[in-house]
């Protein structure tokens, strides 16, 4: 039961973060929010008894891909001036 509650809360958080990621004007915030979505998602995976997936999501979804986003953003900003 507690798992269910946690899942609901996390789920809501995920959705909020997702909306932030999409609708925030600031790209940096957006990217971080997207990373956060992945992070929360990995928690969901844990709840769903999928530690492997959780690890992967945490490492790749919220870790590496966020970093790649930032690299690209960074580069774009630099080119801009």
């Amino acid at each position, binding site marked *: 039961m507690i*798992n*269910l509650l946690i*899942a*609901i809360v*996390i*789920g809501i958080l*995920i*959705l909020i973060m*997702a*909306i932030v*990621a*999409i609708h925030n004007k600031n*790209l940096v915030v*957006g*990217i971080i929010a*997207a990373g956060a*979505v*992945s992070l929360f*998602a990995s928690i*969901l*995976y844990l*709840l*769903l*008894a*999928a*530690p*492997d*997936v959780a690890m*992967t*999501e945490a490492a*790749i*979804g919220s870790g*590496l*891909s966020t970093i*790649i*986003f930032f690299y*690209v*953003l960074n*580069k*774009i900003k630099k*080119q*801009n001036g």
Partner: protein
Amino acid sequence: MENLSLEIVTLITGIALLLIGIWGLLTQKNLIKMVIGFALFDTGIHIIMVSIGYVKNRTAPILDQAVKTNQAAEKIVDPVPQALVLTAIVIGLGITALMLAFVLKMYQKKKSLEINNFNDLKW
């Protein structure tokens, strides 16, 4: 509340995330935002997949002290969707990285991140 089980909550979360992702992909004019939208869409699908593999009140598909080999079939969740998701996540990363590389190149060419500025080829 009684119908609401864990996997259904996560399934709904996944679907909602997927829809938000599509929404972002379709409405945001910024290329990076579009990629973010795509990443969310992907994550949504992954959550759906894992939810589908879940079996009520069971543990991870790892055989150890807690889960003896002879009772595994009653104790663990379905490993197959998890395996698939693993693959899917990595594929998703590859595609995201590729998209971002393209975005970067496109930006270098036109100094713009507006999708509307990349309509050179049409009809």
